[in-house]
């Protein structure tokens, strides 16, 4: 039997991160195309709950329990355990969410396994070898890559695939972490404190995202973006400049270094649409952009492009939407 396709489920606070479900769904399609078994892997201190959650999407899940003194592990510390399992069970390809934790894990696994990595996949295919599609540049050029050997690590862009549950949930097998010698360095990262603060609604998974860019003009004008988001029942997003300027928290940044989103509606206010932003919202189903620059790159991928002053348009738009809602 040729090697299986493994899809990694990421744990946060004991639960499966939602982005792992889309990755698992893609893994299933990929496995079907390749004629290979698909196995979910959740590794952590207490992987049980997340492993069960991942089993909604893949027929078989390995829950790998790794002991840790303070009940917490970095992805790098989990990597040698997963690498050991890979050596024992011989999967051919590992799919990992291209999230902050997933990228850390994929990088560490590359070191432990000596495998190549193809990053930010938006689709996968098979022609006797793995074909990994990524998107580059402002104009959405599609690059299809492969591995030069019969195995590899693939990070999958978060939120580009809609999760689809199985009719019958898969089975979970719990595995004790293989006894590992000599991997103490990464376990040396200790959590001193975890502090929770109230946060704005997440852009990930939001049906509507209203995002502002440099064109919003200042922290004092930022409530414009929030007011439109409120009236459309959406989350507030941003391109990088408003985050760097401190108008909005980093958690709301959409793009290369921030979140990847897939809303039904994405409204871009004063966002020019450089490639760094584009890669985070290119799978939005409908894009409405307001910009005073008629040549802003976002024009090329907006469904509705409004040339005008957002400071005049947005308040009137919010009033109009509220008026309709009150009718």
């Amino acid at each position: 039997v040729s090697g299986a396709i493994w899809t990694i489920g990421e744990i946060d606070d004991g639960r499966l991160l939602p982005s792992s479900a889309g990755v698992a769904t893609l893994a299933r399609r990929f496995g079907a195309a390749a004629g290979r078994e698909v196995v979910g892997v959740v590794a952590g201190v207490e992987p049980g709950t997340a492993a069960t959650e991942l089993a909604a999407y893949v027929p078989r899940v390995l829950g790998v329990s790794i002991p840790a003194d303070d009940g917490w592990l970095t992805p790098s510390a989990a990597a040698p355990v997963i690498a050991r399992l890979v050596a024992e069970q011989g999967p051919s390809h590992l799919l990992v969410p291209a999230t902050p934790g997933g990228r850390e894990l994929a990088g560490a696994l590359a070191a432990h396994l000596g495998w190549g990595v193809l990053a930010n996949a938006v689709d996968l295919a098979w022609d006797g070898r793995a074909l990994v599609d990524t998107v580059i540049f402002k104009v959405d050029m599609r690059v299809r890559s492969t591995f030069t050997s019969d195995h590899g690590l693939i990070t999958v862009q978060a939120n580009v695939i809609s999760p689809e549950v199985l009719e019958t949930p898969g089975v979970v097998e719990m595995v004790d972490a293989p006894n590992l010698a000599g991997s103490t360095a990464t376990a040396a990262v200790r959590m001193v404190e975890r502090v929770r603060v109230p946060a704005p609604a997440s852009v990930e998974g939001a049906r509507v995202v209203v995002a502002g860019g440099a064109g919003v003009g200042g922290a004092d004008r930022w409530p414009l973006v929030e007011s439109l988001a409120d009236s459309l029942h959406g989350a507030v997003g941003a391109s990088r400049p408003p985050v760097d300027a401190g108008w909005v928290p980093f958690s709301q940044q959409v793009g290369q270094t921030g979140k990847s989103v897939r809303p039904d509606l994405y409204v871009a206010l004063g966002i020019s649409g450089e490639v760094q932003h584009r890669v985070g919202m290119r799978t939005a189903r409908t894009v409405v952009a307001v910009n005073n620059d008629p040549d802003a790159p976002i024009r090329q991928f907006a469904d509705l492009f409004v040339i005008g002053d957002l400071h005049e348009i947005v308040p009137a738009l919010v009033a109009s939407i509220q008026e309709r809602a009150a009718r």
Partner: protein
Amino acid sequence: MHIVVMVKAVPNTAGDERLDERFRLDRVGVDPIINQNDEHPLEVALRLAETIPGVETTMLTMGRAGSWSGLNKGIAAGINKSVVISDDALEGSCALATANVLAAGLRKLPFDLILGGLDTSDGRAGIVASTVASLLGLPFISRASELSIQDGTVIVKRLRDDGYELLQAPLPALVTVTQTVGDLRYPSLRGIMAARSRSPETWSLGEIGLAAEGVGTAAATTSVVAVDPPSPRPPTRVVSGDPASAVKEIVEFLAERRFIS
């Protein structure tokens, strides 16, 4: 104390890059700059050097020797030394080979703390720093928004969407930092003048103890099969004119698509 910052030279044309006939990023004739996300760890290194006596800062990069001019910015801002690992054999290296090269370079340098950025504007994979840490067996902490050194450890504040974590690791360690630490400072006139007269140390593969067979196109773990133009998308409806009529058109559009009732 020695701090090494890993940086990458990237084309200053984000989004408008070209691919060469072998589907590799065409770097010929394109002015390279420091990858934007690598400027933040440079600033962190400079701040630590200001507050801790005896800190030496080094920039480490892999790339064409000629690509250094754009990277002088770090030296001008106050980084003490720069090392570029440059070798014709490196052309076409994959991410894993790049990490191997950087790790080999680091083995030749004294370090207590290694810093890096989150990702690069050309590759965007965001994995190399983590690979380097695992290759060197170092504790790795990603996405620092603040960082301090205390009693032989690094303490990192890492932002989460719902708050933050304070993490601690013994030195030596490798930490990547986010844009929230702030931008690289402007260089002083003195710094700019000093950078002009300072050239980087250039190391060949042989000097870091690696064989040419392990890097470059021939040893790459990945390869490009095809590059296709984007699939056509529906035409953009463009609205211009006075705000009142623009608002009317937006409302109609949103109602058509049932985003509002």
